[in-house]
C-alpha cells in the first residue's frame, strides 16, 4: 500500500447485478474509520485492469455478461499481475465462478475461467435463492458468515483452495461448504453486498494489505448481523 488504499472495482458495467457496490462502500468506510485514505477505481470492461491496486472486487451478473467478463479478464491479464504482486481479491457469485478454471455457460456448456482459483463450476439442478449462514474455517478466526445467495452454480473445490466455510443454512458450493480462499483471494456465493453483513471479512481483506487494524464502532453492522442470524439460524 502506498499513501492511500487503492480499491479496484472490476467491471461494474458487466458484473454488478444487485448491490455489489456495497462491498466497495463498506471497504471505503472501514478504511476511513481508521484514518486510512482510499481511492476507488471503477474499471469498465473495455478498459485495462490496473496492476497497482490493493484490494480488488468483482461482483455477480447474468450468464452472458459473466462469459464476456471472463474473456476480457483473461485477455487483459491485469488482475493476474496484481494478484502476483500480493493484492487482495473478493470475488462474488458469478465473479467467484469465473475465478476458477471452468464454469457453466448459458446452456451449461463449460467455459474457460480466469484460473486464479483451483475450482470448477457447473450448473445445478435448481436455483439456490435465500438466506445463507455458515461457520467460517477456524483458521481464519472469523464469526459466522451471513448473507443472501441467488445462483444456479455448483462449485467443486480443488486441492489448491480451502473452503471458506461450512453451511448451516443455504446451499453455497453445493457440497456443504460455501466459498473458498487461497492466498489473498476470497470467493463466495454470498451475492451483492456480502461485506455489509460480514464486516470481519472486510477487515480481513483490508488487513492483508494494511497490517493489523484497530477495532471500530460496529453498532449497526452488529445489529443487522444479530437480527439476520436470529431470523435464519435453527434454534
Amino acid at each position, binding site marked *: 500500500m502506498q499513501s492511500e488504499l487503492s480499491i479496484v472495482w472490476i467491471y461494474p*458495467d458487466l458484473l454488478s447485478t444487485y448491490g455489489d457496490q456495497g462491498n466497495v462502500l463498506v471497504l471505503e*468506510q472501514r478504511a476511513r474509520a481508521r484514518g486510512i485514505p482510499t481511492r476507488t477505481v471503477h474499471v469498465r470492461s*473495455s478498459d485495462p485492469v490496473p496492476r497497482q491496486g490493493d484490494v480488488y472486487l468483482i461482483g455477480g451478473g447474468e450468464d452472458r455478461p459473466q462469459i464476456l467478463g471472463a474473456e476480457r479478464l483473461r485477455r487483459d491479464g491485469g488482475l493476474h499481475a496484481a494478484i502476483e504482486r500480493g493484492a487482495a481479491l473478493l470475488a462474488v457469485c458469478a465473479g467467484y465462478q469465473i475465478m476458477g478454471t471452468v464454469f457453466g455457460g448459458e446452456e451449461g456448456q463449460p467455459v474457460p475461467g480466469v484460473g486464479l482459483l483451483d475450482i470448477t463450476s457447473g450448473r445445478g439442478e435448481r436455483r439456490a435463492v435465500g438466506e445463507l449462514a455458515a461457520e467460517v474455517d477456524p483458521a481464519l478466526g472469523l464469526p459466522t458468515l451471513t448473507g443472501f445467495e441467488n445462483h444456479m452454480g455448483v462449485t467443486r473445490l480443488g486441492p489448491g483452495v480451502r473452503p471458506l466455510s461450512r453451511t448451516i443454512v443455504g446451499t453455497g458450493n453445493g457440497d456443504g461448504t460455501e466459498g473458498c480462499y487461497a492466498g489473498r483471494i476470497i470467493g463466495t456465493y454470498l451475492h451483492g453486498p456480502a461485506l455489509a453483513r460480514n464486516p470481519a471479512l472486510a477487515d480481513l481483506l483490508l488487513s492483508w494489505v494494511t497490517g493489523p487494524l484497530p477495532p471500530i464502532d460496529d453498532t449497526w453492522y452488529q445489529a443487522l448481523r444479530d437480527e439476520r442470524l436470529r431470523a435464519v439460524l435453527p434454534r
Partner: protein
Amino acid sequence: MSQLPLRAQLASALGRTAATLSRATGRGDGSVIGGRVGLMLEPDLLRKLAADRKLVLVSATNGKTTTTRLITSALQELGEVATNAFGANMPAGHVSALAANKDAPYGVLEVDEKYLPEVLDTTNAGVVCLMNLSRDQMDRAAEIWLLAQKWRRALDGRPVHVIANCDDPLVTWGASSAARVTWVSAGQRWREDSWCCPECGGPLDRAGFGNGGQGLTAAQIADTNWACRECGFRRPEPSWALDGEYVRDPQGQHWRLDLQLPGQANRANAAVALAVAAVFGLEPGRALPRLRTVTSVAGRYTTVERDGRSMRLLLAKNPAGWLEAFDVADPALPIILSVNAQGPDGRDTSWLWDVDYRILRGRPVFVTGERRLDLALRLAVAGVPFQLCESFEQAVAALAPGKIDVIANYTAFQKIRAEFGRAV
C-alpha cells in the same frame, strides 16, 4: 364486444360476481380473483374480451401504473376506456378490467414485463408502449437482458405500433424488431444496467460512468445519447422528446406539461402518453388537459393527514425508483423511509446498496419497516444521520406537525395506505 359467445358471457359474469364478493368481504379489490374465476371457466376469455377493441399495452420496470392512468385519461377524450387501474397487471387482471367495461371501444392495459409476449399474443393489441428496464427484485424477477430478448422476439414481424423510450438502450433493443416504432426521448436517470451494448456486449459510449449510478450531474442527465463503440447499435433519432418542462412533438412544437403529478419521471411518463395518444389521432392540445387532471395514482403521490402531520406517500420499489422518489422529495422536509422484504418486495435487500442515500444528508431522516436494520446500516455507511423507529406510527409521533415526505417499498407502502384508507 357485447356479442360475446354464451360461455364467455357466463364466465365474465361469474368473474364479476367473484370480484364483487371479494370486495364485499374485504379480501381484496377484486381485480385478480374475478379474472381468475373467468379464466377458469373460459380459458379463451381474454382473447374474446379483447377482440374488436383498440388496445394499448403498457410495460416497463417503473411507471407502468402511472403511465397506464395517463394514457387512459387521454383516450377518454375519444370514448370509454377499459383499464386495470390498480396495477393487477397479469392476465387475470386484464380479464377483470375488460369484463368490467365490456362496451368500451378502447382498452389500456398495464402488463407485467414477463407477461408481455403472452398478453400480446392473446389480445393482438395494436399499440405497445415500452418505457424502461432496470434491476428489480432479482430473487424472483427475470434477468432483464433476457426480458428484453423476449420482447424482441414477441414483437418481431408483428403488425403492431410500438411507442418506446429510445434513451433506454435495453428498451430500444427490445423494441427495435417491431415493424413500426415511434421513438420518444423520455430520459434515463438510472444507467447502471445499460453500460454494455445489448446487441454485442461492447461498451456503450454515454455520459455518467463511474459514479455508482448516482449523482449524475444535470448535464449528464440531459445527455441522453448513446452508441455502441463496437457494433454500431445506437440511439435512434426520436420523433418526440422530453425537454425539461416541455415535450417536443414531431412537428417541432413545444408543449408545456404543467402536470399535477410531480417529478421528472412523471414528465417522462407524460411524454410517452402523449405519443401514444397521437397514434389515436389525439393532438397534444387535446390530450394534455386530460393528463393534467391526474393527481395521484393508486395512492402514489397522495397526501394523507394525521394529527396535524401532512404526509406525501412516494412508492419506490427498486434503485431506479428511489432515484425518482428523491427527485420528487422536498429537501426542506423531514423524511420517513420504510423498507420491507416480503414476497412482493423481493426477499433480498441487497438493492439498498445500489441507492445513493447521501442526498438525504442534512434532512431529519426516520427509518422504519421490517428491514429497518438493513437500511440503518446502509445509511450509517453513507454517513447519513437517522433515527430508528419501531413502527411507522412511532416515526410519525416523533415528528412535529407539518409536512413530511414518506418513501416506502411495496408492502411497506401498502401497509401505510391500508392504515389511512384506500383513497386514490
